[in-house]
């Protein structure tokens, strides 16, 4: 049980930490002018040069391997509802680390999504 809790925390903290780092990198990169192949390749090249992107990648890799290990131990109906906590953790990160304005409506939506994902996965 301790192993499951440990890998679940790796999954949640790794995914939210990685996504927050990648968001910071993408905001610094700027959006592609057009969604065409040439512009997208230039965008990808610029994004890969961002230091924040390379902070995010190992954290997301940790989260990915934690997910694989958890899926090999536990049913998906446990893993996905438990990992739904990342919606709440991620919103805290967005507010306090990325400085996003999280309105009451957005908070309410995040909490409903989190509860909904847990119920769907529990079946």
């Amino acid at each position, binding site marked *: 049980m301790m192993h499951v809790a440990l890998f679940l925390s790796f999954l949640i903290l790794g995914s939210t930490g990685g996504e927050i780092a990648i968001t910071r990198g993408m*905001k610094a990169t700027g959006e592609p*002018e057009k969604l065409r192949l040439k512009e997208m390749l230039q*965008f990808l090249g610029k994004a890969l040069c961002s230091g924040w992107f390379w902070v995010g990648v190992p954290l997301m890799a940790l989260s990915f391997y934690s997910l694989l290990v958890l899926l090999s131990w536990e049913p998906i109906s446990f893993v996905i509802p438990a990992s739904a906590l990342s919606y709440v953790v991620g919103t805290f990160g967005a507010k306090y680390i990325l400085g996003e304005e999280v*309105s009451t*409506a*957005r908070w309410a939506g995040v909490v409903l999504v989190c509860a909904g994902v847990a119920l769907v996965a529990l079946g």
Partner: protein
Amino acid sequence: MATEGRLRVKTLVMVCAMVVCANAGDLMLKRAMLQIGAVQLSEPGLAHAFRMTVSSGTLWVGIFFLCGFMLSYMTVLSWADYSYVMPAGAFGYALLTFFAVVFLHEAVSPRRWVGVALICVGVLLVGQTKPRTTPVAREALA
């Protein structure tokens, strides 16, 4: 106003691409891990699991879809808030349930329908908020 509308449309398109790729990728990963079996937490067990995962074709198909997810995710995060994109992406859970009923004729429990309703209301609530509340780098990539 037109810029706000354009921002919402392109965010919606990218979130849809994210949802399709993420769901296809997750299904492939689950199938691959079922084929591989339970991972043992020992040095030879982890080494064996690593060899099995890198040589699994199903896992690579899953990774291909997850790369598509990652590209659409990175693109949408270049202009939209993380706290907007993340819950909106959960719409995939609701979509999968609808597909299971319509195409696979699966029976869905009342609890799952309540979950789908909560996700839809949650995504609608988040969707009503501004997709972007922080400044972004203005330099365009020519």
